[in-house]
């Protein structure tokens, strides 16, 4: 590969507290050679002028579902990576709720090989915390980690058994693996599909109280004080949860928190008359909850924004609300929808980018999310102002279940580089 220089670009890299207009020089190996306003040039290098655009580290999405194996009709490595790159995401943490579940080493080998062949994006596979995600028996954390598993998650399932959870934490602490919990008390969420309150009452749907989330967070953080391990909550959705988190953080307990971009941008009223594409887990809650989550990011109580990309075919969504599948796609619109929070003055740009790049990379302990000299040139280049309208049929995912169909957004990815190569541009 020839040396490349990206010129006249505004570089925002929270990992080195950089926000300046300058150049990025990429060497033959696809690494960052120099960056910033003092960055040099070279005559032989290929020049790309990016005047008026912004370069940030390629996004790290900590929660996405890839349909392989078992659900290829919903998404596969090729379509997922196309969607990701079109959205400026260069590193994806993939969920293990495939068929079969990724809970043993032979599955890991398969997924890594398959991903390497089919996807043009950095994949970091998760394995399940418990076998078959049944919440009974922990998986082989040590062996799985040695094969390249980045973290452990039962995705949309929660370890209900407190004894097992304490053992998982205890065991995990010794071998330094990341445990990613979905916080939901099953007894409290039985048959429910949206937030409890007026909207649920009007629609005649069984509502779920945010206590179901809070109670698991409280339990886990109590256990965590006894068994400190690398613990992360995938997605929180309510003000009540944030209060618990705040209290525990001030008590010195160490853990990290994620939030889905959907919970930051939408609330329960958007469900309207049974829009099943907005049936999500955790559910969309009140406007007050949404605003408190934004506040949580401001105060560093929430560290990561994820897409919670869940491709679902039309068939499983075109059902009565209670029967419809849960989740929406979002990896391609993750950055643009996040930028909405900048444009409507909810959050500073630097904070948003931090939650999408260096913060998740640090939690995962991976060498991504930064444009420091010597790191891989995984770069997302976007136009902060460009207006566009989300059209499901134009999205690259195999499934088109976006929660933000027809939403008018401002800010769009122009170009994505992976190890110095332009892998997407429009």
């Amino acid at each position, binding site marked *: 590969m020839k040396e490349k220089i990206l010129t006249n670009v505004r570089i925002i890299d929270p990992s080195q507290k950089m926000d300046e207009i300058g150049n990025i020089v990429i060497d033959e190996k696809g690494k960052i050679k120099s960056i910033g306003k003092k960055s040099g040039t070279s005559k032989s290098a290929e020049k790309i002028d990016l005047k008026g655009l912004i370069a940030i580290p390629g996004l790290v999405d900590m929660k996405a579902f890839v349909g392989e194996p078992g659900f290829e009709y919903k998404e596969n490595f090729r379509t997922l990576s196309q969607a990701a790159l079109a959205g400026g995401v260069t590193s994806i943490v993939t969920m293990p709720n495939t068929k079969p579940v990724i809970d043993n080493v032979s599955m890991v080998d398969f997924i890594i090989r398959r991903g390497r062949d089919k996807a043009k994006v950095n994949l970091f596979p998760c394995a399940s915390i418990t076998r078959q995600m049944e919440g009974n028996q922990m998986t082989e954390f040590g062996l799985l980690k040695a094969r390249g598993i980045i973290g452990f998650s039962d995705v949309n399932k929660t370890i209900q058994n407190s004894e097992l959870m304490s053992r998982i934490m205890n065991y995990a602490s010794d071998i330094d693996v990341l445990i990613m919990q979905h916080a939901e008390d099953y007894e409290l969420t039985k048959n429910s599909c949206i937030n409890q309150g007026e909207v649920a009452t009007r629609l005649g749907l069984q509502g779920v109280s945010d206590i179901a989330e809070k109670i698991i967070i409280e339990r886990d953080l109590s256990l965590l004080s006894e068994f400190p391990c690398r613990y992360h909550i995938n997605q929180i959705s309510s003000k009540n949860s944030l209060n618990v988190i705040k209290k525990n953080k001030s008590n010195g307990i160490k853990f990290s928190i994620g939030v889905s971009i959907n919970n930051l941008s939408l609330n329960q009223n958007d469900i309207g008359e*049974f829009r099943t594409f907005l049936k999500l887990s955790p559910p969309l809650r009140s406007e007050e909850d949404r605003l408190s989550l934004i506040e949580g990011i401001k105060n560093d109580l929430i560290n990561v924004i994820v897409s919670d990309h869940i491709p679902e075919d039309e068939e499983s969504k075109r059902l009565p609300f209670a029967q419809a599948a849960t989740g929406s796609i979002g990896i391609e619109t993750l950055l643009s929808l996040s930028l909405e929070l900048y444009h409507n003055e909810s959050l500073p740009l630097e904070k948003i980018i931090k939650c999408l790049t260096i913060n998740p990379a640090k939690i995962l302990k991976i060498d991504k999310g930064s444009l420091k000299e010597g790191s891989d040139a995984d770069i997302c280049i976007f136009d902060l102002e460009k207006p566009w309208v989300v059209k499901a049929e134009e999205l690259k995912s195999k499934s088109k279940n976006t929660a933000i169909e027809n939403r008018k957004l401002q800010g769009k990815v122009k170009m994505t580089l992976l190890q110095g190569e332009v892998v997407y541009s429009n």
Partner: protein
Amino acid sequence: MATEKKVTAIKNTPKHLLGIQNLSVLEAKEILTEAKSFIKLNRGSSKKLDVLRGKTQINLFFEPSTRTQSSFDLAGKRLGADVMTMNMGNSALKKGETLIDTAMTLNAMHPDIIVIRHQDSGAPNLLSQKVNCTVINAGDGRREHPTQALLDALTIINRKGNIEGLKIAICGDILHSRVARSNIYLMNMLGAEVNVIAPKTLMPKGIDNLGVKSFTDMKKGLDGCDIVMMLRLQNERMKGSFLPSKREYYEFFGLTPEKLKFAKKDALLMHPGPMNRGVEIDTKLADDINVSLVKEQVELGVAVRMACLKLYCK
């Protein structure tokens, strides 16, 4: 009736009757006026009209029902429609057929009206997006049961002359009740004051935002009420441990002659049926023709459904 003047609001609106929530005051009044004209007809000896002659009405019932189903059946026949009733049970679902598939199949037979009862809230809305005939909601999950509310309104108007200014108590399992929801919307819309009374475990969150006052004490909730609507307590609620026992429920929330005295002297009693005698209502009270409107509700139900079928079928 407040306005005997013929109002014609429905013509200009969507052709489905999915819920009271989607109805305007004018539309509701138009249905009630129309229904009133059918009461006499139904009491007469010749009950057949031909306004729906040549039209096909399919009653699609995914949940068991006696009175609603037979009421829609009769209503359609009295208007001259060809009526087909399909009791779906869970059979179609067991075979893996989705609601949409069923809808498409029926749609291919060119019906003019589909009357649907479904256990899932929102099912009629979904159906209405997929077929090109009129969809009438005969009860969906715990969301709405519009024709029940309309027949309740007609029954009240028939006895009290007007709904505006009345105080109406709805008592029982509000949480799971579509009848309660539709009645809350309609009675509010027609100018009544609505109280809901239920144990806390059967009271949905956010109910106060629907424009009602909520009570857990029958005495307070019934105070000054003109109409007392009792709801059926579904026995399966006991298993879910919403309540300690039937006995305790009856003690505090069952309507007895003594408790009825908390309401106005001339208060009338309603129940959408089927009744659990001795659970939510005293058996003698239920049969007391001086207070109970239960039979009248069933009778006027046919008139209301005839009105809905006539007005919505285009």
